[in-house]
């Protein structure tokens, strides 16, 4: 049960005209996992999630979500008669599949989740009616979820007047209303304060403990640290997939140090360190810097000089360092 694969994609391809948004990616997510999807804006994360939620038919590839699968074969080269908009799978077939998928997944998008001009109760009522939930089931479920998110406001409060953090929690409750097995969260915490993000991630962890599978994208690397596994995407491709610790080892085989400037440095002074021969990587992190040693010999030679400018201590690289090196370093 624990190792059961609930989300699986094989050779998933999505094209918009000439543009390949998702380029033959494959991955598998097990029940109860928190699976993080990281990548630059426009790397194809949202597109992938939309396919998995049944919101967008893929150009080709196999997708299996909560036991429901469909397959889209790439058009044979000779099939010239096939209209460009034609789908191999008949429209009726895809619709049936995506409707079934939608009963098993919850989706919280980065942009729109709730109606600002409706109250919390009205929003939840509306979503319950979309799922055709029986009134008694809905009321019980609503009660559970409001307790789950520790909702202290009134159901009669306008969503537009809630703070961003509480709005996100209510959105999560709305996405979980029909008790889905899998929940897809697309940048759920953008613009939420650190304390709000912390509370939100506590909820995510509890969902996973209760056997729900959480599929999440984020730009906050401290959040990514809390994922069980992380997939790094760039230009529609999956370039690495591992646990946070595994990714750090993979991307930074060399030792990493934190540099704390003893005296503040000007922008141009800092710029010169980026190309310093001792470093294979040098990036600001707050008012400090994270750097990777180019090689042991040069490092041993140049370290004494550097210690006059910085106080230096060895650290594990942050996921932000991993992200920057993995995504940018290979551009």
């Amino acid at each position, binding site marked *: 049960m624990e190792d059961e694969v609930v989300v699986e994609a094989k050779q998933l391809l999505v094209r918009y005209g000439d543009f390949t948004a998702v380029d033959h990616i494959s991955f598998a997510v097990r029940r109860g996992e928190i699976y993080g999807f990281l990548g630059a804006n426009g790397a194809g994360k949202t597109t992938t999630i939309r396919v998995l939620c049944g919101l967008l038919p893929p150009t080709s590839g196999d997708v299996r979500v909560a036991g429901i699968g469909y397959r889209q074969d790439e058009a044979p080269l000779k099939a010239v008669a096939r209209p460009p908009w034609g789908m191999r799978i008949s429209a009726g077939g895809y619709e049936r599949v995506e409707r079934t998928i939608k009963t098993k997944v919850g989706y919280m998008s980065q942009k729109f989740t709730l109606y600002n001009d409706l109250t919390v109760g009205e929003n939840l009522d509306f979503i319950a009616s979309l799922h055709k939930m029986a009134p008694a089931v809905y009321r019980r479920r609503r009660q559970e979820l409001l307790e789950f998110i520790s909702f202290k406001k009134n159901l009669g409060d306008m969503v537009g007047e809630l703070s961003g953090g509480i709005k996100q929690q209510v959105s999560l409750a709305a996405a979980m209303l029909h008790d889905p097995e899998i929940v897809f969260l697309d940048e759920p915490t953008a613009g939420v304060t650190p304390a709000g993000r912390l509370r939100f991630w506590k909820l995510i962890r509890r969902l996973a403990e209760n056997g729900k599978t959480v599929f999440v994208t984020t730009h*906050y690397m401290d959040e990514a640290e809390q994922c069980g596994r992380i997939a790094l995407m760039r230009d529609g491709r999956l370039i690495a997939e591992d646990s946070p610790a595994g990714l750090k080892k993979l991307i930074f085989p060399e030792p990493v140090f934190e540099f704390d400037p003893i005296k503040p440095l000007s922008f141009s002074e800092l710029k010169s360190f980026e190309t310093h021969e001792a470093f294979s990587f040098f990036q600001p992190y707050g008012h400090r810097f994270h750097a990777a040693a180019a090689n042991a010999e040069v490092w041993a030679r140049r370290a004494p000089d550097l210690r006059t400018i910085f106080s230096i201590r060895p650290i594990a690289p942050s996921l932000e360092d991993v992200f*920057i090196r993995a995504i*940018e370093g290979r551009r």
Partner: protein
Amino acid sequence: MAAGEPISIQVRDVHKEFRRFEALHGITLDFDPGLMHGIIGPEGSGKTTLLRILLGLMRPAQGRILYFEGGRPASFDVLRPHIAYMPQAQSLYPDLSIEEHLAFFRDLYGIQPRAYAEKRAELLSVSRLAPFVDRPAGQLSGGMYKKLGLMCALLRSPRVIVLDEPTTGVDPISRRELWELLYRLLDQGILVLVTTAYLDEAERCSKVHLIESGSVIASGEPRALLDDQKARSFDELFLRRAAGSASE
């Protein structure tokens, strides 16, 4: 290089009432030129309201904003053309391309063709947006969109630039690129005001002003401030405060 003398701004006991959020209860702050001022605080603490008041987009209910040019008092209307703004919410035109945005703001600011050509080339190369000049803003990724917003603000070589959460929803790499653009400005003696939800960014400001529920709770150099609060980072500081207020 920004022409003209540096601008500084003083906020004196500014109040603003709202129904629920973003109210201000007596804010007093000094924004000195040539520095990067980070305004940080929880959501709804009044950061955006403060910025809007500084920009003349809202009037304070009480209190005053004083503007200085080269240390001498100056009126806001005189300085307005030299103060640039990048709002938090999406504020560009989705159907206009990068090139069309730049041309639009060139004419609004009355920039001369030669100065414009130079500035345009510089901004496009620094922002690495040159290959996308014909792409409509609605089709840009989050990071590119923010960079375009910043370019529109920088086009006129302002002496003050006000940025409301410029890096929200932006991936770590674009975030770094945006900060590089800001650092370049600092070297030119520009006053930068920035709000951010990323607390590691707060550490990179010259001065940090912590705002909570419409009041300034601390203000100063980030490292001194952290040492003062015995915190290693602003993340730590804020989480501690949040934990404190939650247990109340």
